[in-house]
């Protein structure tokens, strides 16, 4: 622990810087001083509308999505003791996508319900994500082998994609278009008034994830050792699953299936901290997830390159090298 807490300060500062850059960058570049002015002395500035109405919702969405997916990835890597676990590879986002497709594409079915569409989508995505996680957990007890589990997760993901395609084939054009746009992944498109739908569940999930740091640490040296140190392993695992499902499901509901963020960010955190101690790694992962999502958002919106890119292409381009590095330095995760 000694001295490593400063990394957290560094990550947070980096995140704030990226957020400010995100607010400043776009079709109109705004000086940072004016961004500051709009944020903290709003009411008169020339750029208030752009900063607060247009850009701020996207920035907040990116922060929530990055933090949520990264924390979900860390929870899954620890409870499965598998460095390649993450919301994407284990089929959580696939399950959530299926849930979202059921709501967005089969709209006539829901037209009569008085519930808001946002609520329906959230609930459907959560149900999909948690259903897949429960399936994976069940399978993990049966096979107990990391690689088999990953392949199973990929299969579940493919299955969900196939079912989504079937739904797509039989849906009307307008619903299809909005679903396809959703599927490309984006932090944009949330109005200020809809933000609580993503911010509140993610905040709850993050706080709950932080309460698990002590038992998660014990589980790093195996379930049985953790049990002999007084940890109720099954309860911690169950809670982690619900929390990971809540985080990944909520984010997927509003931002689409985002690749690699959840898997890669915890590894970046470990590489900096040189520690898997969750008391540091969990907050570090949350901060880094938010900061790196903001970096992705900047690249997506054409900062530095001037070209607009799809979000999933950017997260994959940044995430794949991290995953390859983890695979090739397999020694760091000593075999069972």
């Amino acid at each position, binding site marked *: 622990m000694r001295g490593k807490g400063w990394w957290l300060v560094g990550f947070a500062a980096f995140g704030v810087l990226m957020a400010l850059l995100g607010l400043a960058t776009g079709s109109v570049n705004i000086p940072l001083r004016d961004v500051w002015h709009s944020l903290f002395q709003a009411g008169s500035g020339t750029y208030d509308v752009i900063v607060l109405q247009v850009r701020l919702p996207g920035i907040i969405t990116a922060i929530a999505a990055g933090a949520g997916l990264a924390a979900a990835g860390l929870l899954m890597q620890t409870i499965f003791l598998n460095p390649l676990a993450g919301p994407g590879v284990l089929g959580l986002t696939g399950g959530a996508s299926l849930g979202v497709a059921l709501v967005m594409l089969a709209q006539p079915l829901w037209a009569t319900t008085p519930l808001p569409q946002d609520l329906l989508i959230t609930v459907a995505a959560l149900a999909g994500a948690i259903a897949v996680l429960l399936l994976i957990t069940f399978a993990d007890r049966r096979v107990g082998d990391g690689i088999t589990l990953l392949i199973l997760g990929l299969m579940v993901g493919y299955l969900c994609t196939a079912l989504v395609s079937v739904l797509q084939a039989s849906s009307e054009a307008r619903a299809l278009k909005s679903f396809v746009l959703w599927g490309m992944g984006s932090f944009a498109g949330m109005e200020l008034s809809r933000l609580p739908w993503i911010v509140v569940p993610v905040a709850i999930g993050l706080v709950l994830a932080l309460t698990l740091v002590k038992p998660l640490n014990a589980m790093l*040296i195996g379930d049985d050792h953790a049990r002999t140190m007084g940890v109720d392993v099954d309860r911690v695992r169950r809670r982690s699953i619900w929390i990971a499902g809540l985080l990944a499901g909520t984010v997927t509901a509003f931002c689409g299936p985002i690749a690699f963020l959840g898997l890669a960010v915890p590894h970046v955190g470990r590489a900096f901290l040189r520690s898997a101690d969750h008391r540091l790694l969990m907050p570090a992962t949350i901060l880094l997830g938010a900061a790196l999502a903001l970096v992705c958002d900047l690249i997506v919106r054409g900062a530095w390159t001037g070209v607009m890119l799809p979000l999933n292409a950017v997260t994959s381009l940044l995430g794949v090298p991290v995953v390859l590095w983890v695979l090739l330095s397999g020694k760091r995760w000593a075999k069972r």
Partner: protein
Amino acid sequence: MSAFGPLMQTEELSVGHGRTLLVSNINMELPAGSLTALLGINGIGKSTLLRTLAGLHLPLKGRMLVEGENVHELSAMERARRIAVVLTGRPRTGMLDVETLVALGRQPWTDRWGRTTAADREAVEQALERSGAMHLRDRQVATCSDGEVQKVLIARALAQATPVLLLDEPTAFLDLPNRADIVRVLRSIAHGSNKAVFFSTHDLQLALDLSDRVVLMRSGEGLWQGTSAEAMHSGELGRAFSGSGVSIDPLTGTHRFLP
């Protein structure tokens, strides 16, 4: 509980998996300040007995007492404050330094966030010292050799500050000097801190030479326990391994492999 009575004992204990009974009617004692070795051939139930004592398996029958209290009536946390366990195999730790791993042993004593106090750090320091792992404290666990990892795991269990310490084959996969080193560490822990230390092993010679007491698991006959000298001289050791192609000299305890 007197300081000289057994720290842990079993009463008519039967262990096994589900319906498969492995050993029954175990009446065993682990006295304070002594190192006890658990010997027996593969598959006879050494691990199952240890895991049952550790509270990881339910006994099929009977009771186990630690400091006079029934193990299964204790909460997980109360149990963790009385019995520390080192299981076989190397934990798959990604990016964990030795000191952090050893400090995990303080979990039954720390607050809900796992914050360590000065007293906790002191206990970790002592545990590292006692197990001979002090020089490893800043190393990443993944870079340690198997023997070093074993010492680190023992330090972790020591940091838990329990009267009873159970170890499942702590010498497996180690070379001869490391095996001797580990058992010597266990012996000094038992004698130096008045703990009851119980370990399973396949190293007959090491067990006989360095442990105070021996528990033999024999197929069909239940358990035999006594001092190492008694185990040799009474011929019990020879009988426990009879028919296995190994002959054991009742005077020295040395074994020879029959062609």
